[in-house]
Each structure stands twice: as structure tokens, then as C-alpha cells.
């Protein structure tokens, strides 16, 4: 049994067989087979070897043709090695004696030969080891290709283990079969973690190296409550976790009773709780958890994991689905495309590589440079606005001019729609994210341009402290409790109050209970969080007295370091909440 500690990103406990994913998104093959599968494995090996040899020989002909027979002959030698019956015998004997998979047996045999060659005294001969690596790759490629072990070929429930998962890989996970995941890399606010919340499966990230210690098919436990990954648990641990699973179900049930109650403080102040979503199907989850609307619909997930930009129609259908699911009155805040930095991988055709993507052409900047793309999205949002209470939100605004430009494009799209006699809500509320320090500092001016603000805490923290939230070396600087962040938030709250502009807070910070009293005390009356945290936050708000929250906020604002702020807030939160409910 091995226990690894990481960062919990979605609660719950899952016990199941492990499935390993390599860096290219292929499943890492298992090491062993059942004794009944030996013949089948021999056949896989035979076909793998045959196909690899065919490919190498056809390359031989091409190269001989292009640059000369003697070069082609090298590949001829490779093909000979691939077809070497002695190689096949060696591999087969490992398969039948040790029940290894063809892949694993191949790599063991090749490793042995490579070592032998490398130990030759003749340096030139020793360097031929490179040929063996190549040969191994050829056969392995065919063996893995046979299985086509992409994530789409799953057929039984598993726990995914990987070094890292890209947001688009995460988005494509089939949650019917993928019951949990755990990764070596990543932090609490990486987009993969945010997506884990959206998928509603227990997940732990930032576990450090563990992949080499686990084999596909091993039983593992992902404990999304405590942030643990347990490989090959002993009987006692297994039993304990089976009991934990039952306990969680009953806690969820007790929180569910809160669904239809308002989030109202002890002294009668109502706080609006909305849900953050990435996909239309999450609206159901939001409603189940008692969300009063969608406070942040991250539309970029519609663009991710796809080869082409989604059409206006495709986008329209998605936005319509969300707004119709939420009903006529509940607000649905749709944030325009916020692609950038780490999310851009799947989008390389729109974007040239940048030295510093987080400070580069991303999000609203990308949209203002690709007006066609932006207008398509705005048309889809405006068209969907007739079905309910849609509000439009711009991400990453950093100057007043940018905000005006974005608004001007909305006006143009409105005019187009009007001329085409396409119905839309001409009074659609427009808001801006406050997630760049410049926007927070100028919030007084920004307020004159919009009808609402939404503070995006993840980016605001990152940009204020100039710390990349996914870089583990500087991640400790990234702290939402930093006094600099709190002061910016206070500025925005005051600007919103003076100008009578609605204010929302989204981002992970809004879902973290230790900041709830601070927010309430500062005067924030609306939070948008991952739907799964709504019941918990609601339960807490119902215990808080606003007078106390104001006192707590005042005291927190007096602290000088993030650590002091967090310690103080944690202590104050603990006074109201039993430990078991805090993370």
C-alpha cells in the first residue's frame, strides 16, 4: 500500500481499478495479462511485428529511392531485426512464463539487448543501440495502435491516473466510466481542477511522482475530501473507506434539505448564490443544488477539444439550452470567450506561440483582434437572450478603451440583428470582469460603462501577485488572502456601491468558506461558485450574523500578510463551523 498526499479539488471517495494515461493521452498499457490470454497476446505480437516490418520495408524503398540504396539498407537491417525469430521467441517466452503483456515483454527484451550493445568496447558498434530504440518504438507503436487505447475506448468504470490532464482531455472524460482522477501535476485553481468540479467527480491533483509506482488495473482509492491517493490499499484501509463512502452520502442528504431555503444571514440579509458552469448540462446540477441563477457560464469550453470554432448555430443552441433550463427569471451570465494561456493548446490556428501567454493576446484581446469570431459569439448570445434573463460579461478587460470597444461591437451586432429582423433583448445587461489589477484600480471609471461587475478572483490574484498559479515553484505567492488582493476587492466593492452597479464575485475564492464572512462584511451580496459548494456555503451563511461579518472584515483588512489574513479568517470561521465541515 502506498499513500500519496495532494490537493483535493472535488470531494468524494472512489475505489476502483487504475487506468494510466501517458503524456500524449494514450493509455499506458498494463504490464500483465491473465494466464488465459497468452495465445491472444502471441497473436498481437505476431501482428505487431508483421505490421512494423511492413512499414519499415516500405520506408526502406522510399529512402532507397530518394537518397540511395545504401541508406535504404539500414532500414532493411531494421526490418530484419524486427522479424528476427529469436527476438520473437524471447518475447513470447516472457509472455508465457511471466504473463507480461506483449508491450512490456518487448520493452524488457529490448532493454536487455540495448544494454549488451552499449557495453561493446567498439564505440561505433555501441552506438548502434540507437537502432534498437528505434526498432522498439516501431513495434510498440503497432502494438499500442492495435489497442487504440484512447480514452474513448473505455468500457468499464475506472480511476484515471496521469502526470497531468489538459483541460480539453478533462472535458472529454466520460464520467459514466471515469469515476475519479488523480494527477502528479496541477494546483487547486488550474483549469483541470475547475473542470473536475464541473464533471462532479472526485479528484486530487499535485500529488508528485507516483505513476511509476502503479500498474494499470491496480485497485486505488481517490479521496477527494482529504486529497489522498492510495495505491493498492490493505484490507483495513479498504474497509474504512467503504464506510466513509456511506457517511458522505448521508452528509449530502442533510445538505440537500437546504436546497429550497434562502441563503439568509441570522439578521435577515439575503445573499444571492449562483452557480459557475462550463457545460449546458450542468444547469441541472445547479438547480438541484439550489442555485438562483448562473453567475458565470465559461463559454470557452464550447471551443475546447474541438478542431474548428463552433458555428453560430451550435453556440446559439448551447446558450439557449442553458437559459431555457434556468427559466425566464433566473439570471444567466454568459462570459464571452476567455481563451488564453494554458487553454489555448487546442486553438493554435488562431494564435501564434507567445513568450508570455498570460500577458499576451488572450481572452477579450483575442476577440478584439478576431472580430469575426467575436461577432459570431455575440450574435449567438443575443439571439438566445429572448429566451430568458441573459447577461453579457466581458473577460480580462484591462482598460476603459477596451471595454468601450467591446461594447461598440455589441452595438454593431445588435444593429445587424435589428436589420435582419432577428429578435434579441435590446436591453441586455452588459458587465465586465474585474480580474486585472488595472480594472480594479479604475473600477470607479469602469462602473460608468457597465451595469454589473464580476470579480474574477483567480486571475486577479495571479495578476496582482505576478505569480503563475500553475507553477509550483511560485504557487505559494498565489494567495487569495493577500492584503493586496483584499484591498483591490474593497476598492471594487466601494466603486460598485457609489455607482449603483451590481457586484458578483466568482472564482475559487468565492467558494472557499474562510472568505465568506470577509465578503459579506465588505458588502458583497452575491457569490457565484461551483454548484457543488452551494449547499455548504448556504448552510454557513445561515449561521452568520452580518454585524459579526463586518467586524471580521474590518479586522482582516488590518492584517499585513496573507498568512495572518488566512489564519485570522480560518479561526473566525471555525468558531461557527464544526471542523468536519471545513477543508
Amino acid at each position, binding site marked *: 500500500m502506498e499513500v500519496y498526499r495532494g490537493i483535493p479539488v472535488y470531494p468524494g471517495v472512489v475505489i476502483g481499478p487504475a487506468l494510466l494515461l501517458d503524456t500524449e493521452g494514450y493509455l499506458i498499457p498494463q504490464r500483465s495479462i491473465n494466464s488465459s490470454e497468452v495465445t491472444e497476446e502471441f497473436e498481437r505480437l505476431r501482428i505487431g511485428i508483421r505490421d512494423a516490418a511492413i512499414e519499415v520495408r516500405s520506408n526502406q524503398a522510399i529512402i532507397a529511392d530518394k537518397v540511395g540504396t545504401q541508406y535504404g539498407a539500414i532500414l532493411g537491417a531494421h526490418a530484419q531485426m524486427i522479424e528476427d*525469430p529469436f527476438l520473437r521467441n524471447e518475447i513470447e517466452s516472457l509472455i508465457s512464463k511471466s504473463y507480461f503483456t506483449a508491450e512490456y515483454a518487448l520493452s524488457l527484451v529490448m532493454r536487455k539487448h540495448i544494454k549488451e550493445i552499449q557495453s561493446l568496447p567498439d564505440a561505433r*558498434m555501441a552506438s548502434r543501440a540507437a537502432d534498437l530504440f528505434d526498432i522498439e518504438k516501431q513495434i510498440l507503436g503497432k502494438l499500442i495502435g492495435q489497442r487504440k487505447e484512447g480514452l474513448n475506448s473505455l468500457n468499464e468504470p475506472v480511476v484515471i491516473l496521469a502526470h497531468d490532464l489538459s483541460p480539453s482531455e478533462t472535458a472529454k472524460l466520460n464520467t459514466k466510466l471515469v469515476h475519479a482522477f488523480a494527477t502528479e501535476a496541477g494546483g487547486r485553481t488550474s483549469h483541470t481542477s475547475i473542470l473536475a468540479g464541473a464533471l462532479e467527480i472526485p479528484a486530487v491533483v499535485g500529488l508528485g511522482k507516483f505513476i511509476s509506482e502503479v500498474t494499470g488495473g491496480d485497485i486505488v482509492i481517490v479521496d477527494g475530501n482529504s486529497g489522498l491517493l492510495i495505491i493498492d490499499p490493505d484490507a483495513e484501509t479498504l474497509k474504512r473507506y467503504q464506510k466513509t463512502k456511506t457517511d458522505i452520502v448521508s452528509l449530502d442528504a442533510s445538505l440537500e434539505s437546504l436546497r429550497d431555503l434562502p441563503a439568509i444571514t441570522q439578521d435577515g440579509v439575503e445573499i444571492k448564490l449562483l452557480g459557475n458552469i462550463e457545460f449546458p448540462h450542468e444547469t441541472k446540477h445547479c438547480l438541484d443544488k439550489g442555485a438562483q441563477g448562473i453567475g458565470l457560464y465559461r463559454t470557452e469550453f464550447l471551443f475546447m477539444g474541438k478542431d474548428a470554432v463552433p458555428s453560430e448555430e451550435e453556440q446559439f443552441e448551447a446558450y439557449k439550452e442553458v437559459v431555457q433550463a434556468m427559466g425566464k427569471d433566473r439570471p444567466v451570465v454568459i462570459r464571452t470567450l476567455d481563451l488564453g494561456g494554458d487553454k489555448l493548446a487546442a486553438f493554435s490556428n488562431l494564435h501564434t506561440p507567445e513568450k508570455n501567454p498570460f500577458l499576451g493576446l488572450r481572452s477579450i484581446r483575442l476577440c478584439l483582434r478576431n472580430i469575426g469570431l467575436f461577432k459570431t459569439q455575440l450574435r449567438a448570445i443575443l439571439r438566445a437572450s429572448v429566451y430568458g434573463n441573459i447577461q453579457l460579461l466581458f473577460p480580462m478587460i484591462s482598460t476603459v478603451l477596451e471595454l468601450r470597444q467591446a461594447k461598440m461591437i455589441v452595438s454593431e451586432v445588435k444593429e445587424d440583428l435589428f436589420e435582419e429582423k432577428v429578435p434579441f433583448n435590446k436591453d441586455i445587461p452588459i458587465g465586465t470582469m474585474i480580474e486585472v489589477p488595472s480594472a480594479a484600480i479604475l473600477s470607479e471609471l469602469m462602473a460608468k460603462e457597465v451595469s454589473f461587475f464580476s470579480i474574477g478572483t483567480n486571475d486577479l490574484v495571479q495578476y496582482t501577485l505576478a505569480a503563475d498559479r500553475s507553477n509550483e515553484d511560485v504557487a505559494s505567492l498565489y494567495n487569495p488572502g493577500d492584503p493586496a488582493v483584499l484591498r483591490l476587492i474593497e476598492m471594487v466593492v466601494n466603486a460598485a456601491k457609489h455607482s449603483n452597479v451590481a457586484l458578483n464575485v466568482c472564482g475559487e475564492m468565492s467558494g472557499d468558506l474562510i472568505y465568506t464572512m470577509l465578503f459579506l462584511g465588505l458588502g458583497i451580496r452575491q457569490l457565484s461558485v461551483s454548484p457543488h459548494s452551494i449547499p455548504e456555503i448556504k448552510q454557513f451563511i445561515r449561521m452568520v450574523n452580518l454585524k459579526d461579518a463586518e467586524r471580521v472584515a474590518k479586522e482582516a483588512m488590518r492584517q499585513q500578510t496573507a498568512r495572518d489574513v488566512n489564519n485570522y479568517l480560518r479561526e473566525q470561521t471555525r468558531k461557527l463551523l464544526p471542523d468536519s465541515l471545513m477543508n
Partner: protein
Amino acid sequence: MEDPSPKILKRVVKIKNPNGFHMRPKAAFVEAAMRFASDVKLIWEGQAFNGKSMFELMLVAAAEDSEVTLEVFGSDSLLALQELEKVLAEEDASIPS
């Protein structure tokens, strides 16, 4: 025309290739050896290597002008010996592509 009582046939051969017995001549040798029913061995520095396995021959690091012993045993050994000796002694043996 099978030899009714096969014996082990041996021949010492000098490597002529200026690069030694490297990949291409080895490949040509294996290719040729595979055409015969006889067992084919190459003895180099006192160690025997299977002449039909490219993997084993990879370990033969015989340089130009060094000597290897060709050892053939089987029903077509005489023919094999003649043919394989030719391949080994060739200055720039290569398998046809």
C-alpha cells in the same frame, strides 16, 4: 542433392569491409543465411553467435582485417558455406532493397 551425412563445416574468413562488419553487411549476411536450411554460426573472439539472428550479430564488433570463423551445419551446408563466405569477404556487402 542433399548431403546424406552432414558434418560441421568451418572456414576462417577475413573481414574486408573498411568499416568492419557493420550493420549493412550483417543484414546482407543474415538475409543470405536465412536462405539455407543449415544452422549458421559466426565465431568471433571465442564466442559463437547465431548467424540467422540480426540481434545476435549486432554484438559482433569485428573490425576490418580481423578474422571470424564461419561454422555451418546441416543438409545444405556446403552450398551455404560457399555462399556465406562470399558475403563475408565482400568489401561492401548490402542487401538489395
